[in-house]
């Protein structure tokens, strides 16, 4: 899937990937978690890598692969996002764990990366040949593995 970095594409991608995740057998809850992670990853590219420019390219690929989870082989959905934007600040991709805390201590930022890390089984980032590459993996439910 090749997309432009226009925030208005976000809802289109959510619609398409919701259907894909349903076909793969994800529960409604896990489906939402995958969509949320992908949505946040794309938003980060638009905001940070492309600094709000709307016509830059975002490539998203989907692949079914074999992965191990809890020691057992499982099929998994792999999502890879590529962009040609500014290098990602890797420190920003590793926020401290979110804690229940009083409202005075809560800041509105940083939730997107938390959702990506929390919702996916594997999150990997690489910078290669002037491009950012973010790889997200989520294991399929056992009973529904194809």
């Amino acid at each position, binding site marked *: 899937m090749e997309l432009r970095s226009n*925030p*208005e594409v*976000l*809802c289109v991608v*959510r619609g398409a990937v919701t259907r894909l995740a349903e076909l793969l057998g994800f529960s*409604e*809850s896990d489906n*939402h*978690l995958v*969509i*949320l992670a992908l*949505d*946040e990853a794309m*938003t980060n590219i*638009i*905001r940070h890598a492309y600094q709000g420019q709307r016509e830059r390219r975002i490539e998203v690929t989907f692949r079914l692969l074999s992965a191990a989870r809890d020691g057992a082989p499982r099929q998994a959905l792999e999502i890879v996002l590529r962009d040609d934007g500014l290098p990602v600040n890797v420190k920003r991709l590793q926020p401290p764990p*979110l*804690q*229940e*805390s009083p*409202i005075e201590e*809560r800041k*509105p*930022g940083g*939730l*997107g990366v*938390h*959702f990506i890390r*929390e*919702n996916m089984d594997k999150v990997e980032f690489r910078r290669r040949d002037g491009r950012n590459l973010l790889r997200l993996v989520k294991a399929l439910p056992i009973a529904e593995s194809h």
Partner: protein
Amino acid sequence: MQIDIRKLEQITIVDAAGDIDYSTSPELRRVLLREFRELKIPRVVLNLTSVRYVDSAGVASLLESLKASRDLKSRFILYGLNAKVTQVLQLSKLLTLFEIRENEEQALKS
């Protein structure tokens, strides 16, 4: 996303519909903060019954509105949350900070 505003005595009800995401959340943020900061409304109720999806930008707008309400000793009440919206507030560790009601009647009475 669509936003409609209803005014009752000392209460504003904001009816939101659609998706609250990076693209649409600035408008909801603007509407809510205006009710608190400019109009000094003591109780603002956000109807999320027709909201299908909220992302981190949407959560940030809700959190900022909640902070504004606390600063001004107003109340910010949410109702009509579907499973996805509840899940995203749980992931954000914010569910217990918000006043959440089942329906409009409870939101107006409590």
